């Protein structure tokens, strides 16, 4: 079955993509670029690098811009999926949704409207197992956005390795947040994945941070051999 993966550049969508590749044919990535930094459906830091990640993965990318207003952005996602159906013949959609019933409901409804299969391979996953598998299977993920306590500026740019995962565990326990950051506590960017033919080397970044709210903007990058 040919599938399109809803793609944000973060760990969940790329891990879901990897899962999908083990069962079906991933025909393209689909990205909706929200102009609204508080987008309800699509996260935003560094989405401008989606094309580079797609290139690293060797997959075509369908990109669609949205103003990012609550329900209107679903119409933009619909346009993106229609384009993916037209250009790549996708029969289904893959998402990296873990716990959000809000997000799952909207995507399921849209898929039904478009007569597409809908796959959520991380749905209600054991988050501990998932994060371990993410690291052990060769994903390299950095934190590019922090949006709640205790994530201060020191977290921006950190790679999620075993040491960071230990700290995330402690933070998750103490502050009752999800280990994966799916509640929007932090956002991630994938610089390498098991299916990337090249990895992303970050050469220049800028930070905007204030009071447990900040973004690491990746200014200059290049694809390098692995």
């Amino acid at each position, binding site marked *: 079955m040919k599938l399109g993966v809803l793609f944000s550049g973060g760990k969940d969508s790329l891990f879901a993509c990897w*899962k999908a590749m083990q069962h079906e044919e991933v025909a393209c990535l689909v990205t909706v670029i929200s102009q609204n930094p508080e987008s309800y459906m699509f996260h935003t830091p560094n989405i401008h690098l989606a094309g580079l990640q797609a290139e690293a993965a060797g997959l075509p990318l369908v990109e669609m811009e949205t103003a990012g207003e609550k329900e209107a952005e679903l119409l933009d996602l619909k346009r993106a999926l229609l384009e993916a159906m037209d250009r790549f013949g996708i029969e289904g959609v893959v998402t990296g949704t873990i716990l959000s*019933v809000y997000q799952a409901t909207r995507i399921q*409804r849209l898929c*039904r409207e478009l007569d597409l*299969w809908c*796959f959520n*391979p991380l*749905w*209600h996953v054991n988050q501990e197992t998932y994060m371990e598998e993410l690291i052990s299977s060769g994903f390299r993920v950095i934190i590019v956005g922090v949006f709640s306590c205790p994530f201060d500026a020191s977290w921006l740019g950190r790679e999620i390795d075993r040491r960071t995962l230990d700290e995330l565990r402690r933070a998750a326990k103490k502050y009752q947040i999800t280990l994966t950051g799916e509640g929007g506590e932090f956002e991630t960017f994938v610089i390498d994945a098991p299916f990337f033919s090249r990895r992303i080397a970050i050469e220049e970044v800028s930070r905007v941070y204030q009071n447990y709210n900040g973004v690491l903007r990746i200014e200059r990058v290049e694809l390098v051999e692995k």
Partner: protein
Amino acid sequence: MILVIDLCYRDGSLSRDEFVGPVMRTLQEAGAQFAVRHYAAVSAPDLEAANAVILCGTALKDTGFMEHPGRFGWLAVFERPVLGISSGMLTLAGAFGGVAEPCPGIGMTDVRVIAPDPLFDGRETFAAYELHEFAVQVPRGFIPLAVSDRCVQAIRHRSLLLYGLLFHPEVRSEWIIERFLRLAEPALSV
């Protein structure tokens, strides 16, 4: 031992983690012993070893399991506790003559308990996550236990612990699976 049956379109499919995984996780957290089989691979020894069965859900577009009603004939004579979730409810009801009818539902819905039963004891209403293309006519020998505005959400056999739930209890209503485990406990300790 609980036999967890995967009704998805293929053994080891991309849907398995979504529809079987969360049920497995709830059982693990409850300390229950279980084995998972795809519906096309369920054998007579699997059924003999099972003290209870959970039939899991499927993706909305996944109706392959409905094309093989003969594979589920054993449900009509199984007599041990069964929990059919969404597509699993259709399968259970289908084994007793219950006909599926189009009734799509996606998202959170309010479920109202309409008949007393230990599965929902102490709850008159609760919110549940639904994801279904069809609902089912209550088959003979079953009673409706709970409803939403549009569909029958839960059924039970009149005398056996055979339950069908249209919603997905593994999403935000795990307590119902835990209740089922407690109700099935006498069978599980045999």
